[in-house]
């Protein structure tokens, strides 16, 4: 999602190679590129200026350590500043209060408040909280029904309200309901409003006063442009914001709004919306975002996701197998493919790899990669267990049968068997130790990644 910014910075860094010291002269171009990149990423101009000034001040006169190139030294400064700007550490929701803990959602029209409310409810429900969803959006037709439908999908309690009611009455009644039914958390969705709409801003201030929320979350679209600073400023002046949810980050927006909003409100970014589906809400990790911008990849997120979705037992079995030097067979191959898919497919996977690796792999369309993976799985499924365990027995006649069973050409079966052989070699290399060796061998040989 932030590849473009990443790519730009990589370019800048190349130009800085071979200099012994960061000086006014040699970082001038680099700073200009950073400025342009940030502007194109929709970071608001005042924020960009501030940021550039900081980076310049900190970078100037910095001696380049022997172990670092000037480019690396510069990147380090940019990285540190970016992380600082995005708020240092990840801050979780603070629900430590006498229940019900109220979460108030606020934002512009179409920023994704209702969807985020439901996603948040799902997340809290997973943490064994009893959640009540309520909506005071009496303005947009069917907004309340939208939340109601989502609540039903999630099997979460929903406080019914209708368009004839006043938002303040809904707030009072919902809070009362949450108290009497011992809900741990009340998530209160509100109508989208413009920061310059004084009547509407007064309304949400009143709601805030009534509900006394422990968390007031500002929901902002990652595609927002320069105006993010204005709306964020107005909202943070009207409400004591405790956090920000950045939505629609699965698009190709560069997400510069994250920097702007953080800079203006001072409130930490708590969650990011990464899919239309209900599980598409992830905790925001500033240090990861910063390293991602700089092309270091979001490896930590990837590992976390892997832990969540990959069957640990199966993974362990495979690891044992590799260690014990036993043959890596087609069953294992299939299992790996399935796990990759469970992690969100090739696209999600590549999105999180460090830039160099992603570029090496990136010449392929992830969508195509996914399709290739599905086909491979189909072909393996058409084999008998004996064939999967011992692919050597697959000769012409068996190949024809498998091809017919999977609905593919015989050539594709051949290709799969060849790829599998490569994979087997790689696994042997891995068992002999040396991930580096494996990475070199992997260049262009991953199943479905180009041929």
């Amino acid at each position, binding site marked *: 999602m932030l590849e473009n910014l990443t790519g730009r910075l990589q370019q800048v860094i190349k130009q800085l190679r071979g200099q012994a010291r960061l000086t006014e002269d040699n970082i001038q171009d680099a700073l200009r590129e950073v400025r342009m990149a940030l502007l194109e990423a929709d970071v608001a101009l005042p924020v960009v200026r501030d940021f550039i000034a900081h980076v310049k001040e900190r970078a100037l006169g910095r001696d380049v350590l022997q172990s670092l190139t000037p480019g690396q030294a510069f990147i380090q400064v940019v990285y540190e500043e970016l992380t600082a700007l995005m708020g240092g550490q990840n801050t979780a929701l603070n629900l430590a209060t006498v229940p019900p803990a109220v979460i108030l959602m606020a934002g512009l*029209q*179409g920023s994704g408040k209702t969807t985020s409310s439901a996603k948040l409810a799902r997340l809290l429900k997973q943490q064994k909280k009893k959640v009540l969803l309520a909506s005071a959006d009496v303005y947009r037709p069917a907004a309340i*029904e*939208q939340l109601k439908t989502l609540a039903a999908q999630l099997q979460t309690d929903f406080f019914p309200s209708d368009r004839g009611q006043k938002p303040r009455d809904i707030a009072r009644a919902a809070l009362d309901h949450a108290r009497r039914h011992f809900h741990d958390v009340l998530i209160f969705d509100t109508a989208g409003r413009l920061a310059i709409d004084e009547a509407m801003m007064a309304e949400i201030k009143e709601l805030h006063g009534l509900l006394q929320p422990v968390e007031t979350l500002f929901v902002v679209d990652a595609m927002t*442009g320069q105006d993010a600073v204005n*709306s964020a400023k107005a909202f943070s002046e009207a409400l004591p914001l405790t956090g920000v949810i950045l939505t*629609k980050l699965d698009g190709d927006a560069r997400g510069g709004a994250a920097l702007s909003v953080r800079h203006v409100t001072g409130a930490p970014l708590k969650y990011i919306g990464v899919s*239309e589906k209900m599980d598409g809400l992830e905790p925001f990790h500033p240090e990861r975002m910063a390293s991602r911008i700089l092309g270091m990849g979001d490896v930590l997120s990837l590992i976390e996701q892997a832990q969540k979705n990959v069957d640990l037992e199966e993974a362990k079995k495979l690891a044992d197998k590799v260690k014990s030097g036993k043959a890596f067979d087609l069953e294992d191959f299939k299992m790996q493919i399935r796990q990759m898919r469970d992690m969100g497919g090739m696209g999600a996977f590549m999105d999180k790899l460090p830039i160099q690796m992603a570029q090496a792999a990136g010449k392929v369309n992830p969508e195509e990669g996914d399709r290739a993976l599905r086909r491979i799985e189909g072909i393996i499924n058409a084999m008998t267990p004996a064939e999967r365990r011992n692919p050597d027995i697959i000769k012409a006649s068996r190949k024809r049968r498998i091809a017919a069973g999977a609905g593919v050409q015989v050539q594709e079966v051949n290709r799969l068997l060849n790829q599998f052989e490569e994979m087997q070699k790689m696994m042997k290399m891995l068992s002999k130790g040396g991930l580096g060796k494996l990475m070199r061998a992997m260049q262009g040989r991953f199943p479905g990644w180009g041929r």
Partner: protein
Amino acid sequence: MFDIFKKKHESTKLDQPLSWAERLKAGLARTRDTLNTPISELLRGGKIDDALYEELESLLLMADCGVAATQALLEEVRSQVSRSALKDATALRSALRQAMTALLAPLEQPLDTRSHTPFVIMLVGVNGAGKTTTIGKLAWKLQHEGKSVLVAAGDTFRAAAREQLEAWGARNNVHVVASTGGDPAAVIFDAVNSAKAKGIDVVIADTAGRLPTQLNLMEEIKKIRRVIGKALPGAPHEVLLVLDANTGQNAVMQVKAFDDALKVTGLVLTKLDGTAKGGVIAAIAKTRPIPVRYIGVGEQIEDLQPFRAAEFSEALFA
């Protein structure tokens, strides 16, 4: 130009509380404030220097015009200065405004629905851009012009999107074709057929919001377009991409992606009544000049107005 619509405003005052120009100006007031105040301050000196250029650059950038369009616009006035066609800062400012108008002028092509009956309009856009709200306003507008309108609730994905349209349709006396869940292409196919049978003038098809990176959803919408063509050869006659004025440079990517997939024939720029500047239109004019059919300048049903380049940049710089 300004005088013209001031007069128009007075003459229409009786039946409308505010003229559209006033609404637009009110909507763009913030834009004007940011663009105007600092410039006027700068211009008091009247000298053309680097500080002036830098300030102008900042103003354009902060209006979301984007790096490329901003540089192009400034380059243009700069060359005029070097030819000494511009003497002082005031002249420079009006030259900049003219450059902006010239850049936006090709986008000023109003939508004409008379060419076909039924005229099929398909609305597309990212999530939360304002498609469904725009449909409401558009249907009202067309009905006001004496056309019969049918709306197809093609957003079968988002919870209660159909209810939103139906609730709105009931209030405004517009027939909404919908079905629970199911295939959006089928819903729209039915709507087009029913419009043909009933002799309806305009069919407006809603679609679910989607991000251009969701390739399967982009395939789905291509299919919807194909299916509309099957119901009525030559349709859809208009593919409108709805853009949120709050969007930054990503709007350019959206235009490219949707245009590549669907051949977008017009744009609608919504939510111009906030503090957002909508300057990204300039960036779009530079990279993919697709006509801007309408701009949304308020939440009221009549707040959908035709785009006029001169007035837009006038209001932007006034």
